[in-house]
C-alpha cells in the first residue's frame, strides 16, 4: 500500500503575526485556508455534518483565542489538528456517546440492523456497478457505521495516519502520545475495521 503523504502548506509567519495583532482580514485568510481541512477531518472522525460544523466553529473560536499561545515550535497544522481533535473528543464526551467502558474486544460485530439493511442495498447495487469504481451511498453508510463502532481514540489515530496521511511522529505530537502508542492503536484500529468490513462482506 502506497503511504499517503498529504502535504499541507504552513501559513506565512507574517500572516500569523498580523492575525495575532488583531488583523481580522489576516485571520479570515487563515480561516479560508484551513476551514476545509478542519471540517473534513472533523467529519471523518464524527461522521456527521452537523457535528463537523459545530466542531469547525469551536475550533476556530479556540484558534482565535489561543493564537498568542502558538509559539512556532511545532507546525501550525499540527497545532490545528490537536485543537480539532480535542474538540471532537469534548463533543463526544458532552453528548455522552462515548462507550468508555467497552473495550475493543467486547465490541459487537455486524449485529447492527441499520448496517445489515445497508448491506442488502449494497449487494443489490453492486450487481449493477463494481464497488471499487463508484463510492455509492450504501457503501458510504457501511463505512460510516463500521468506523463509528470503533472507539474514538482509535478512530482518530486511524483517520490521522491512514486517511489524512500524517506521519507516526506527527500523530504522536498531535495526540500527545508516544510513537509506540500510536502504532499500537493504529494496528488495533486496522484489525477492527477489517473485521467489520469483512462481516459486511465488503472486502
Amino acid at each position, binding site marked *: 500500500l502506497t503511504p499517503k503523504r498529504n502535504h499541507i502548506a504552513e501559513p506565512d509567519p507574517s500572516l500569523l503575526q498580523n492575525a495575532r495583532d488583531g488583523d*481580522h482580514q489576516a485571520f479570515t485568510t487563515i480561516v479560508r485556508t484551513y*476551514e476545509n481541512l478542519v471540517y*473534513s477531518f472533523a467529519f471523518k472522525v464524527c461522521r456527521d455534518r452537523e457535528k463537523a*460544523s459545530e466542531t469547525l466553529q469551536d475550533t476556530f473560536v479556540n484558534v482565535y483565542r489561543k493564537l498568542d499561545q502558538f509559539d512556532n515550535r511545532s507546525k501550525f497544522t499540527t497545532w490545528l489538528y490537536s485543537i480539532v481533535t480535542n474538540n471532537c473528543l469534548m463533543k463526544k464526551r458532552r453528548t455522552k456517546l462515548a462507550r468508555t467502558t467497552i473495550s475493543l474486544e467486547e465490541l459487537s460485530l455486524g449485529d447492527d440492523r441499520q448496517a445489515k439493511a445497508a448491506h442488502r442495498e449494497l449487494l443489490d447495487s453492486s450487481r449493477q456497478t463494481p464497488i471499487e469504481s463508484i463510492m455509492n451511498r450504501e457503501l458510504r453508510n457501511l463505512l460510516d457505521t463500521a468506523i463509528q463502532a470503533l472507539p474514538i481514540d482509535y478512530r482518530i489515530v486511524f*483517520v490521522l495516519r491512514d*486517511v489524512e496521511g500524517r506521519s507516526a511522529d506527527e500523530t504522536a505530537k498531535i495526540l500527545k502520545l508516544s510513537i509506540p502508542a500510536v502504532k499500537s492503536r493504529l494496528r488495533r484500529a486496522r484489525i477492527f475495521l477489517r473485521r467489520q468490513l469483512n462481516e459486511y462482506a465488503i*472486502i
Partner: protein
Amino acid sequence: MKKEKITCSHIRRHLCSELDENLNSSRCRAIQKHLKNCPECTAYLKSLKKTIRLYRQYPEVKISRLREDQLLRCLFPADRKKQTRTTLQAKKNPESKTTLRASNR
C-alpha cells in the same frame, strides 16, 4: 540458536503494524517469504489494504459558502454587520461607487 517459528498470527500482527513501513528488515523478508506460500495471509493482507483504500476513497466533504459565512459572522460579528450595511447601502444607492470614482479623479 533455535530459529523462531513464524506463525500466521505473527504475520498478521506484523502486517497490521508495519503495513506502510520499510520492508527491508530481515523480519519483513521472512514475512514476504511466508506470504508466497500462504494464501490465507495473502488474502488477509489484501483485505487489510482494501479496508484502508476504501476509507481513503471516501469522498471529501466541503464546507458550504453559507457555513463559511456563519463561521466568520460568529468570529467577527461587528465586521459582518458593517459589511452588510455597506452592501445594503451600495444596493440602495448604486451610483455611490461611480460618484466616488468621479470625485477621485
